[in-house]
């Protein structure tokens, strides 16, 4: 069995009559953290939605754990935890209720302690956990969404701007979580504007421009990516 967790082959996706992905290809191994960097409209979120099976490619294939997202969306979704850009949770529910509800929908029945631990891991204040999310800041909501993604315990994690709205300390905590998950074999594909964060946690960083992967940087033996090179190329691509 191949250890490729995510694979995009010649992926072409059209949204609203416009080609957003134009023949993108890449592979991500199990336990790898791959960050996709790109400007607005480069096709970052579209890539994630295609792997979720929410968008059907007009050409090419998006595979998750060897299964086509377009052809077997239900099977694929059971392998994926997805963290959207804006924490997509219910305002009328508390953090606890949101977690319980979404997890029960995915047939997960975690113990209360596991819920507590997940919320501890994202540093959500204990006193806020019983309050409806409408009273939460954007960062607090994002923490709950991250906790939900963690609790799913899926082999693949798709993250859309995961650190958006988080304070610096929470960003650090989040990076620790990502590293811990990766070391446990979870495959992570994150799309982000955060160049520094991406270089800090990712094994590889891809630059996305106009729906195509134009360059990929790999971490060296020490796990570092030369941030200046990535930044220069990224800025070059943005100007071009």
């Amino acid at each position, binding site marked *: 069995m191949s250890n490729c967790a995510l694979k995009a082959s010649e992926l072409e996706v059209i949204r609203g009559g416009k080609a957003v992905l134009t023949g993108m290809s890449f592979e991500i191994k199990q336990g790898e953290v791959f960050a996709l960097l790109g400007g607005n409209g480069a096709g970052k979120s579209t890539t994630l939605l295609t792997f979720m099976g929410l968008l059907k490619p007009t050409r090419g294939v998006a595979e998750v754990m060897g299964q086509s997202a377009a052809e077997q969306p239900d099977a694929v979704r059971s392998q994926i935890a997805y963290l*959207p850009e804006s924490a997509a949770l219910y305002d009328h529910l508390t953090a606890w209720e949101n977690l319980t509800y979404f997890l029960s929908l995915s047939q997960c029945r975690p113990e209360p302690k596991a819920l507590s631990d997940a919320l501890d891991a994202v540093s959500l204040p204990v006193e806020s956990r019983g309050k409806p999310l409408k009273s939460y800041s954007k960062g607090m909501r994002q923490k709950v969404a991250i906790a939900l993604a963690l609790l799913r315990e899926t082999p693949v994690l798709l993250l859309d701007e995961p650190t958006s709205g988080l304070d610096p300390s929470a960003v650090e905590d989040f990076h620790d979580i990502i590293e811990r998950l990766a070391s446990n074999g979870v495959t992570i594909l994150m799309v982000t504007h955060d160049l520094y964060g991406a270089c800090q946690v990712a094994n590889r960083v891809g630059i996305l421009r106009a729906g195509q992967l134009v360059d990929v940087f790999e971490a060296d033996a020490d796990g570092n990516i030369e941030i200046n090179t990535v930044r220069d190329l990224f800025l070059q691509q943005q100007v071009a």
Partner: protein
Amino acid sequence: MSAITLIAADELRYWRRSKVAWTVLLTLLLVSVCAALVSNSEISRRVNERVAQQAEADAIFQAQPDRHPHRMVHYGHYVYRTASPLAVIDSGIDSMVGTSIFLEGHRQNSATFAAARETGLLARFGSFSPAFTLQVLAPLLLIICGFASVTREKESKTLYQLIGQGVSSSNLLFGKSLALGLVALIALLPLILLGFTSTGNDSFGFRQSLFGMAFGYLIYLSIWVLLIVSFSALLRTSAQSLSVLLGLWIITVVLMPRIASEYASVSVPSPTHVETDLRIAETMRAGGDSHDIEDNAFVGLRSLTLAEYNVESIEDLPFNYRGLVALRGEEADTEVLNQFAEERMAQELQQKTIADSFAMLSPVVAMRSFSMALAGTALPDHHHFLRAAEDYRYNMVQTFNRLQMSEMTLAEDLARNDSDDSGRRTRVDASNWAGMPVFELRPRDHAQRRQAASQPGFTMGFWLIAAFCLLLLSTRWLRT
């Protein structure tokens, strides 16, 4: 719990915590209960009024002194239509048509030729009754409650989260439909409770009809639930969903019944009251005046009767020949009157059929017909009353005509106005009308009402299947 019940439970939790939804739910419950109470009180008042009026009319009629029988024919008698027990739920056309008829010789009065045209019957927006609440208000409140059931998930991006948890679009839409369906049940609660708590004589199967109505309304509201969730799934924003659903409500609930009845009245125009009266008078004139035994129209009758009894003159007959002329004259008049009445009723039914055909364009048209048919307050029930009243009138008049035949001689009858004494000799004992049976309308039984409800019932079944198909299509076209 399955994904469907989890989603339904969360939707209900959302409504419970949302003030707007809570207000809508309370309004729905309050309106349903108020409509049941108001309607119950109104119908009880009407029933009591009619019972009292009928008793008074019977008493006055039976208390008439000794009279010439033909004076009783013209004195006449009032009969009242007692309301169907289910008029509490759906008063149907009761308020649009006459519920009392003055019965007398040679005429069919009031309600028979009242302006009970289909135009008026179907176009009405409805009185404040449980039927009005369920047909008109409940869909509107369901729209207010459910228009954003799916669009809300799109706008807050929780749809991605749900799909990300492995929730299929069909489970999502079925769950949302289940929750909205439970809200719809609130509106049906008074009807169901009434069915379970109603007691007493049920020889006409009103309890069965009540449960039939509850089932019909369940289907009708389910159609709305499925349409609401489908449009919420198919459209991108809550604003779009609300606009489209309100438009649909206005067209199907407010406009379509009116268009249907207007179209029906234009397609089958009814003659005016005056036109009808003139045609009846003209036709009856040809049949002769039964007050005049010398009228040419009765020459044949005279010859036949004389031959039959083998006598030379009408004075030699063993009965009062004037009574016989009155008897045969009433027979002929009634034939003419019934012919016009049946013609009129056929026109009304034709208009109803045309109006009912609009049920394919609006479920409320089907629901109204279904509900009125089972409640026993539809047009055929009104016609049933008219025919029963006419039977009663005919029998009453002919009873008096027979009394005129048997209780006096022709000579006495012809001389009745000569003096007080001769007038007294033609008076018949008051016990003859004091013992007359009172008018009792036997409602059409459950089988007849069920048969009348079957066609609109099938149409509602079609709507339910169509709405379910739309929901299934929406699961494929769910727009994120």
